[in-house]
C-alpha cells in the first residue's frame, strides 16, 4: 500500500520518481500511459484511450494494465476507473483488417453488432466494398489508412494484421567503426521493427538520425526519407554516407533544386506539398519505387497533405522520428492511426543522466521596456504587439552582454524577425542566416562555425531544424514563433549535443517583461519545464550588472 504511483480520478498517474520502486513502476505503466510531464519530483502520465489501444496493439491486455495500476498504486484505485480501462481496451481488436486470400483486404469482426454499427457510419460507407459474410466486409486496398483513421475516430480501432510489403531489397549495413549505436537507440530500433510501424520519440541531439539508419539496416530495402528542408536533407545524406555502407551515388535528393530518385531517396515536405493547378505533381515519388521503408523526420511537423498521402502507404513500414509528439494542431491521433503508435520514448533527463545529451542551464532573462516603449506597446495594434515587444532595443543590450560573457564559445543567436536579426548581426559583428541566404552560403557559414572560424552566428527560424552544429554551447533566443512549444524544444536541442569537454550548455531566452512576450515565453517553456528543464528567471538589470 506504499507504492510510488497515485492514480487520479482524471486518469492521470502521478509517479514519485524518488521512490525505490519508481523504475519498476515506470516500466510497468509505460506501455499504456503517456508521459505528460517529467519535472523533478513527480512525473505525470496520462491514460488515454489512444494509449490503451496502443498497449493492446503491442500485445498487452487489460488485466496487465489493471494489475500494474493496482500493484504500484499508493491509494486504492477507484473501481470505476478500472472498469473504464477494461471497457476501453476491450474495444480494440473487435475489428481486424487482414488479407483474405480471395477478397484481398477485408475488415472482420468478432462482434457483429460492432461491425453493423460502424458500417452504418456515413464516413465508413465509401471506404468498404461488398459484404462477404455477416462478419466480414471487403475494404478497398487504397483506403487502408483512411478506414483505420476513421475507425479510430469512431472509437473502434481496428487491428491491422494485413502486414507489410517487403519492398525492393537493397543492402544497407551500419558501419560501426569506432562508434556504436547507443543502448537506447538500439532499443528504439528493436521496438520499432518489432511493432512494424510507429514513432520513436527522442530528445533533440539524442541521435534520431542513427535510429533511422538502424531501421534502414534492419529493413535492408529501398527507403524514402521525408525531411523538413534541404539543409536537413543534406545532413541526412552526409550522416548516412558516414555511418552506413551506402555510398553517395546510392542516395538521391528530391528537393526544389534536384529531383533524383535512387535506392535511398531523401525528399523534403515542401516539395511534396507543392501544388500546381490543384494537383500535387511530386506525388509520383511515392510510387516511383517499391519502397520498403518510409522514414518521417520531425513527424510533429508533418504537413496535413502528407497525412493524406501516408494514408495510401499503409502496406509499407513507416518510421516517425520526433523530439516531441506535441502538435500545436492537436493531430496526435492522426499520427497514431496513420504512421503508427509510439514505439519508444525516453525522458530527456534520463538520456541526459546517461551522458548522451549535454546538461543545459536554461535562463529566462526579463528585460524592461523603456517608458516610451511601454506607451508605444500599449497603443500598438493587437497583431503588432508581439513583434513590438519581442524586438525591443533593450534585448540587444542583453544579448550583447551574454555574448560578451561567453566570448570564445560557440554562440547561436536565434530570432524570428529579420530586422531584429540584421541589427543584432551588425552589432555583434556576426553573419546572419535567414530565408534568403542561399544554400551554399548557409553550408559555408555552418562549416565555418563548426570549424570555429566564426564564434557567433545569428539565425532565423530557417535553422530551427536538423542542422548539426556540434560545438554550439550557448543559444540565445530573442524572439520566436509566438507560443510554439516544439520550437522551444528544437532550439534547446541546438545546444544539447554532448560537448567534447563535457561542459554545460546554456540556453538564454530574452523576454520583455509584462508583455505578451512573457506570456508566450511561459507557454513555450511549458514543454521543457515538464521535461524537467527548470528555467531560472533573471532580471536584465541583474545580468547587465554582473557583466
Amino acid at each position, binding site marked *: *500500500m506504499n507504492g510510488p504511483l*497515485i*492514480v*487520479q*480520478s*482524471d486518469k*492521470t498517474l*502521478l509517479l*514519485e520518481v524518488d521512490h525505490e520502486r519508481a523504475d519498476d513502476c515506470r516500466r510497468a505503466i509505460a506501455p499504456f500511459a503517456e508521459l505528460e*510531464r517529467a*519535472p*523533478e*519530483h*513527480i512525473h*505525470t502520465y496520462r491514460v488515454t484511450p489512444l494509449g490503451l489501444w496502443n498497449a493492446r496493439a503491442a500485445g498487452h491486455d487489460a488485466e496487465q494494465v489493471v494489475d500494474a495500476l493496482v500493484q504500484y*498504486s*499508493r*491509494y*486504492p*484505485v*477507484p*473501481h*470505476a476507473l478500472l472498469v473504464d480501462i477494461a471497457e476501453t481496451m476491450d474495444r480494440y481488436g473487435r475489428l481486424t483488417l487482414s488479407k483474405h486470400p480471395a477478397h484481398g483486404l477485408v475488415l472482420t469482426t468478432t462482434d457483429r453488432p460492432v461491425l453493423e454499427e460502424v458500417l452504418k457510419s456515413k464516413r465508413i460507407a465509401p471506404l468498404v466494398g461488398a459484404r462477404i459474410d455477416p462478419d466480414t466486409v471487403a475494404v478497398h486496398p487504397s483506403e487502408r489508412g483512411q478506414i483505420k483513421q476513421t475507425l479510430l475516430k469512431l472509437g473502434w480501432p481496428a487491428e491491422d494484421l494485413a502486414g507489410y510489403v517487403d519492398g525492393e531489397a537493397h543492402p544497407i549495413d551500419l558501419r560501426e567503426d569506432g562508434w556504436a549505436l547507443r543502448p537506447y537507440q538500439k532499443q528504439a530500433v528493436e521496438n520499432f521493427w518489432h511493432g512494424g510501424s510507429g514513432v520513436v520519440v527522442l530528445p533533440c541531439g539524442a541521435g534520431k538520425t542513427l535510429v533511422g539508419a538502424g531501421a534502414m539496416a534492419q529493413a535492408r530495402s529501398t527507403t524514402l526519407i521525408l525531411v523538413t528542408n534541404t539543409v536537413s536533407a543534406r545532413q541526412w545524406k552526409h550522416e548516412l554516407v558516414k555511418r552506413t555502407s551506402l555510398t553517395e551515388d546510392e542516395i538521391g535528393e528530391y528537393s526544389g533544386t534536384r529531383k533524383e530518385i535512387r535506392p535511398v531517396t531523401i525528399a523534403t515536405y515542401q516539395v511534396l506539398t507543392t501544388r500546381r493547378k490543384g494537383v500535387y505533381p511530386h506525388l509520383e515519388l511515392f510510387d516511383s519505387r517499391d519502397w520498403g521503408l518510409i522514414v518521417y523526420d520531425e513527424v510533429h511537423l508533418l504537413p496535413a497533405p502528407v497525412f493524406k498521402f501516408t494514408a495510401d502507404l499503409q502496406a509499407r513500414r513507416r518510421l516517425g522520428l520526433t523530439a516531441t509528439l506535441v502538435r500545436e494542431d492537436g493531430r496526435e491521433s492522426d499520427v497514431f492511426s496513420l504512421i503508427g503508435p509510439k514505439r519508444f520514448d525516453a525522458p530527456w533527463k534520463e538520456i541526459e543522466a546517461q551522458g548522451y545529451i549535454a546538461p543545459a542551464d536554461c535562463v529566462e532573462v526579463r528585460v524592461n521596456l523603456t517608458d516610451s516603449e511601454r506607451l508605444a506597446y500599449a497603443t500598438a495594434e493587437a497583431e503588432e504587439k508581439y513583434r513590438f515587444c519581442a524586438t525591443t532595443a533593450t534585448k540587444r543590450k542583453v544579448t550583447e552582454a551574454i555574448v560578451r560573457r561567453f566570448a570564445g564559445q560557440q554562440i547561436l543567436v536565434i530570432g524570428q524577425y529579420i530586422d531584429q536579426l540584421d541589427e543584432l548581426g551588425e552589432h555583434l559583428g556576426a553573419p546572419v542566416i535567414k530565408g534568403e541566404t542561399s544554400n551554399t552560403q548557409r553550408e559555408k557559414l555552418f562549416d565555418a562555425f563548426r570549424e570555429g572560424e566564426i564564434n557567433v552566428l545569428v539565425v532565423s527560424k530557417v535553422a530551427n531544424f536538423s542542422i548539426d552544429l556540434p560545438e554550439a554551447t550557448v543559444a540565445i533566443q530573442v524572439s520566436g514563433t509566438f507560443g510554439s512549444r516544439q520550437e522551444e524544444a528544437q532550439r534547446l536541442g541546438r545546444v544539447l549535443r554532448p560537448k567534447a569537454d563535457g561542459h554545460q550548455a546554456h540556453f538564454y531566452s530574452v523576454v520583455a517583461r*509584462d508583455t505578451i512576450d512573457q506570456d508566450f515565453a511561459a507557454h513555450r517553456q*511549458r514543454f521543457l*519545464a*515538464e521535461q*524537467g528543464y*527548470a*528555467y*531560472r*528567471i533573471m532580471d536584465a538589470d541583474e545580468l547587465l550588472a554582473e557583466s
Partner: protein
Amino acid sequence: MSTEEKPAAPRSLAEALRARDDASLAALLRSRPDLITPVPTDLTQLATRAGTRASVVRALERLDRFALQTAEALAVAADPATYDELLGLMAGDAGDPVVAGALPRALATLREQALVWGGDDRLRLVRTARELLAPAPQHPSPTGLGPTVQEAASGMSPGRIQEIVTTAGLPSTHDSVSALAALTALFTDRARMTGLLAGVPEDSLDVLRRLMWGPPYGQVTADPAPRLRRLLDRGLLLPTAPGTVVLPREVALHLREGRAHRTPEPLPPPVGAAAAHRPQLVDATAAGQAQSALATVEELLKDWDEGGPAVLRAGGLSVRDLKRTAVALDVPEPVAAFWVELAHAAGLLASDGEADERYAATPAYDEWLELPAAERWARLAEAWSAATRTAGLVGGRDAKDRTLSALGPGLDRSAAPEVRHRVLALLAELPEGTAPDAESVLARLRWERPLRGRQPEDDLRGRLARWTLSEAELLGVTGRGALSSHGRALLGLPAAEPTKSPSTGDGDGSAYERRPGSATATAPGDGHGGSDGDDGPDAGRRHPGGAAAAGPADSGPAGAGDKLPVHHVRHHAPTPPAPRSPAEQAVASAAAARLLAPLLPEPLDHVLLQADLTAVAPGPLQRPLADMLDVLADVESKGGATVYRFTPGSVRRALDAGRTASDLHAFLAAHSRTPVPQPLAYLIDDVARRHGRLRVGAASSYVRCDDDALLDEILADKRATGLGLRRLAPTVLAAQADPAVLLEGLRAMGFAPAAESAEGDVLITRAHAHRTPPRTPPQPVPEGPPVPDETLLTAALRAVRAGDLAFTAPRKPNAGADAPAAGGELPRTSSAETLATVQAAVLTGEALWIGYVNAEGAASQRVVAPIRVEGGFVTAYDHTADEVRTFPLHRITGVAELADDAT
C-alpha cells in the same frame, strides 16, 4: 387434527386470533402495524380490521412470492381446504419435496399475518383475500385458472346441463345442482377424467392445452368448429358470454396434474456472485471511495460557499444549476444529483430561507468539517441509509409530468430505506469480499416482494435496488461491489468474523447456510434484534437444509395449528423499515467509523513543489494547508493526490486575500519537502511587485485646486467633516458627498468653488432648462365609443334579431325538459342505505337510478341494473352506457328506485 389441543376448532378469524398466544399476536401486529392504529378495543375488532380490504391488500403486497402463491392456491381451493388439498395444489399430483418442505413455512407466514386461519383440516383464507385473489373475469388470477364448473354453469339452462352430463357419460339427474355436482366429481376424479379425455381427439386436446395455463378464456364463433363443439358438449369448455368460453378450473387442474401454479417458487433465488476479491482490497477500495466522497461533498459546499444556486419557485435546483455543479465536480449529472441530495440529507446543505432564496451550507456543515474523516463519513452514510429522498429520481417526471429536480419536492419514496437495508443485507450474506450479480439481487428482491399486477417498468423497488448498489459504491459502503467491513458495521449487521471467512468462502455459492453466527444473534430472547436483524436468520431457515424449524412436511399437518410458535418462523421480509433507535444507530456509526479510520490516509503537512510551477500533494492535506493552497494555486487534478498549479492569477488571489509575498514564501518554504524552485519564488515576487500598484476606490465628487495650502485649509476646517473628504494627491481631495452638497458645504465655509463637468470645463451655474425627448401630444379621449356608421349598425341589428328569434323559438319544448333537470340533482342516500338498496336490487333484478361521481370528480346520473356486489364494487348493467360496468360503492352518491321518476 389441531383439535387435539383445543376443544373446538375456531369458527371465525376472531376466534382463531383469540386462541393465539401473545408472542404470535405480537408477531402479527409487528408485521401488520396498520392493525393497531388506532388500537382496537378487542380481538373481534382486530379481526374485522384484519379483514378490511385496504389492510389485506397491504398484507398481500408484503408477502414473498411463495407465500403469495400459497394464498393464491388457497383462493382457488375449496373453502375451507385441508392441508393435503393445498399441498396437492402447490406440489401437483406427482409431489415436489422442495415445495412440500417450504409449504409449512409459507402457511405459517400466512397464519401469522392472519390471512389464513383454521386448523390444517379446515384452512380458510380470509374472505377479503379470497375475493382479491380468486379468479374473476375482471381480475384474472395469477394462477391462470378459471371459474369452477359450478360457477361457470350457473347461468346455463337446465336442459343444456343435462345434455352435457349425458354427453360426458354420466346418468342424467333430476336437477341442475346434482348434475353439476356429478360433473365436478367426474372432473376431479383423475382416473375417470383421463378416461373421458382419452375419448377426445387430439385437435380438441390442443385447444385445452392452449388454455391450460391461462388465460382460461377463449373466443368462439356462433357456429364453433367441430373440435370446439366436442369440448363444449362434454362441458370441458363452458360458455360464459356469447362468443366466449372458459376452461373450468377442475379441467385445468386435471390437465396441470393438480398444480395451481405453473412454476411454484418455493425457494428464494440465490444471490449470485459476480466477482470475489480479497476482503482487504474491498475495504481499501471502499475507504478510497469514502475519502473521495468526503472530498466531493466538501468541494460541492465550497463551490456553493459564497451563495449557492437559487431555489426554484417550485423548490429544488434548476437543471442548469445541476449541470453546472456536475461540471464543477467533474461527474455525470445523476451523480452530481446524488451528492447534492446526500449533503442535503445529512443536513449540511439547505435553502437559506431569504427572500431571494438560495442554497447554502448549514452551520452543521462547519461542525461536520471539524470531525475526524471517518466520523464525517459515518454521518454521510448514516444519512444516506435512512433517507427516503431518492436522488435516482432526479431528472425523471412525476405523475403530472413535471420534471423532478434535485432538492425539489416529490423525491421521497418511503420504501427507499427498507430496500437499501435489504440490498445491503443480501450483500452481507455473501462471503466476505464477494461482489453480487446485480440481476440476481433484483431477482431476489422480486421474489421477496412480488409485484401484484403492476408493470415491470414501474418496478420502483427494482430501481431503488439498482440505485442502492451504485450509490453504495460511490459512498464507499461497498468497494468493487462487495460490502466493506465498515459498511457492514454501519448497517448494524453483525461483522463477518474474519476467522470464518476462509472456511465459508469455499465457493458453495449458498449464502443462506453460512451464517451460523447470525442464528445465535437472534435466537436468545426476542428483543429488538427481531425487528432489524431478522433478514439473515430467516434467509437461513428458508433453505431446505435449514428448514427444520418449520418442521418436516408430514409433521406439519399434525402439529401446526394456530398455536404455532410463530415468533420462531418469522416472516422474512422486514415489512416495517425497522428504524433503529438513535442510540443504536450512534453505536453502529461509531463502530463503522472505528473500522474505517485506520484505512483512511493520514492528512499530510507537506507538498512537493516543482519547477514547472506545480505542487503535488501526495495525499489528503491537513485542512489549514489545503485551505491556503486552494487560494494560492489552482487545482489541476484530483484523486488520491492533488496537483496544484501556480499561475499569476492564483498568486494574485492569495495577495488579494491579504497575504504578503513574504507570507507566501514562508508558507511554501515551511510546507515544501524540497527547496522552493526559483521560478515559483520569482513568480510570487513578480506578481507581488505589480499587486496593488493601481488602487481603485469610490468617490462621489472631488475637489481640486492648484494651491496645496488651500486644500490643507479645507481639510483642517471642522465644518468639512461631514463631507467625507480625503486627500488623494497634493492637489486633489476626494469626497463622499455628492457634488451639489459639496458645493453647498464649501460655500457655507466661505469658499467660492466652481462646479466642473465630466470633461473638466467649468459648469455655468445658470442651469440648463430641462427638456424631454420628442413627445407627441396626448390624444383626446371621447366619452363613449365612436358612433358606428350605417353599415355596421344595420349588420349589428340583424344579428341581434336573429339571435333573439333563436332564443325564443325553442322555449316551449324546453319548458318540459326543465322538470327532470330541476329534480335531477344526484340522489343522496347514506352509504348503508345505498348498499342495502343495491343488494336488494341484485336479488330482485330491478334497475336503479344512481348518482355517481367518476374518478375525475364529474357527477352523473345513471340507470343501472346491479348484477353483484362484492369487495366494495357494484357490477351492474349500465342502461345509460348500454354495457356492464363496475362502480366503486364509495363513488355512488346515492340510489333511488327507478319507478319514481321512470314515467
